[in-house]
């Protein structure tokens, strides 16, 4: 039987990275995700697997330590919350330019600026559209439970190395701070130096006589070459869009109306679905698990079936743009969001769905 624990989301991902064979964590504390660093420090991580856990002097230092660790083929990561992730954008862009794999965790809080420490989803654009400079994408995973916080540690590293890409787990204060049941799996051993050389021939592990030096740089002043580099990057992103889309359908089969929501908003909408069903409203939920790549094709399909979609986010309306792009006008798409750290309630979002789609339709029919 699997080991079961009651854990906070932040603790679960910390345990998850240890068990996924992570080599190094570099971070700087910030609410609401400081438990990640605390857990790694308090749980004898070094003694358990030899994993390095280091509190850097700043977020900028953290991300560049990740850059260095990733260049040597190690499984490395950092975590922060919104203002700290903003500080890291330069380093993330450099890793995108050098195709270095890493795991990044953003436990989002309300912004802009220092904002609040309460949960928010207002960093969607930054995570999905490329927060740093240049044409790049990261794989973005959106956990909706503490179990997924744990699971996405291992999945994140797998995807990062499979595609040589940065993987961001885009969580929020609610998922980070709440406790749920977590099923833990066996320890994945850390890679040995020999395994790294064999598995990641691109990594800077020291020149051997049988090959040229490995150089990791995002700089190429020749625009012709730089265009080729960029085209190859785009090819990779396209491939990821074709192969790595993940989502969950909840009560979608006969749905006439659809919530689209990720992370903690998806949990709230899931409750709203059952409240709606109890009232006889055929409502479903599409929960994107990957925000990049986005489940556009699934939404396109659902647009042929439903009468309206409501994107529910703790933001002023960011993901809703991707929902609209996906359905391309085939069906009305509305947005509902709470801002600055306020979490919507299940009956609140159901009311909005009724107001926007159902009551309006009834009015139209009576005229």
């Amino acid at each position, binding site marked *: 039987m699997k080991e*079961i624990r*009651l854990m906070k989301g932040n603790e679960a991902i910390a345990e998850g990275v240890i068990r996924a064979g992570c080599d190094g964590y570099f971070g700087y504390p910030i*609410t*609401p995700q400081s438990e990640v660093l605390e857990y790694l420090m308090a749980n004898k991580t070094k003694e358990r697997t030899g994993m390095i856990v280091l509190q850097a002097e700043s977020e900028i230092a953290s991300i560049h330590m990740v850059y260095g660790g990733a260049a040597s083929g190690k499984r490395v990561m950092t975590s922060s919350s919104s203002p700290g992730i903003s500080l890291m954008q330069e380093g993330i862009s450099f890793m995108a330019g050098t195709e270095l794999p890493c795991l990044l965790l953003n436990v989002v809080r309300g912004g802009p600026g220092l904002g*609040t*420490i*309460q949960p928010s989803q207002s960093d969607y654009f930054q995570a999905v559209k490329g927060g740093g400079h240049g044409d790049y994408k990261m794989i973005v995973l959106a956990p909706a439970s503490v179990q997924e916080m744990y699971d996405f540690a291992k999945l994140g590293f797998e995807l990062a190395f499979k595609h040589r890409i940065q993987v961001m787990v885009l969580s929020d*204060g*609610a998922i980070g*701070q*709440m*406790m*749920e*049941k977590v099923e833990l799996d066996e320890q994945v051993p850390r890679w040995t130096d020999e395994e790294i050389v064999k598995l990641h021939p691109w990594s800077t592990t020291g020149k051997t006589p049988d090959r040229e030096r490995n150089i990791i740089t995002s700089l190429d002043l020749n625009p012709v070459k730089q265009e080729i580099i960029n085209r190859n990057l785009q090819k990779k992103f396209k491939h990821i869009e074709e192969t790595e889309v993940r989502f969950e359908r909840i009560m979608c089969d006969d749905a006439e109306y659809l919530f689209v929501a990720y992370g*903690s908003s998806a*949990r*709230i909408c*899931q*409750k*709203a*679905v*059952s409240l709606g069903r109890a009232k006889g409203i055929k409502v479903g939920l599409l929960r994107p698990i990957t925000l990049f790549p986005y489940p556009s094709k699934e939404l396109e399909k659902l647009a042929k079936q439903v009468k309206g979609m409501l994107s529910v986010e703790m933001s002023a309306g960011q993901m809703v743009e991707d929902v609209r792009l996906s359905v391309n006008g085939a069906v009305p798409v509305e947005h509902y969001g709470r801002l600055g750290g306020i*979490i919507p*309630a*299940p*009956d*609140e979002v159901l009311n909005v769905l009724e107001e926007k789609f159902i009551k309006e339709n009834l009015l139209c029919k009576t005229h």
Partner: protein
Amino acid sequence: MTEEIIIAGFGGQGVLSMGKILAYSGMMQNKEVSWFPSYGPEMRGGTANVTVIISDERISSPILNWFDTAIILNQQSMDKFENSVKKGGILIYDPNGITRHPVRTNINIYTINAADESARMGSAKVFNMIILGAFLKLKPLIGAEYMRKGLEKSLPARHHDMIPENEKAIDIGKSLVKQTYTLN
């Protein structure tokens, strides 16, 4: 079965740990559980609350605005949560420090003098376990053996010698409930 509970009071009354022990015990009894705290600046000396859900099914929203049971331990929380109890639900409160008592007539209200009782036991620390006992009497969702497992898991090993005292407090809490709530 799904039981949606809010526990609210001052930081330091053991609100969050009561919720944690309840959630852990539920999990040991093979239930689905969630524990969602208020967190942030309001915790430092101010009010604290936690939403605990115990269910036989996968839990949808860990964040709620209506509750089957509210456990209320200070006036601010009474003002905030009295009206969040579902019709026919339960409100348990300690009258110490309460200046405006609950007035609703469509819920079941129980006063539990846990502060007085814990003083009689000579340990203010078990205050929250007395309240928890009262809840478990009204909603016997979790067996005593699973409560013990929950206590073992929630308390650090160096405090395991305090488990019998906590169990005693739970029993006293149970005995303080005079009339029993009937589940419809």
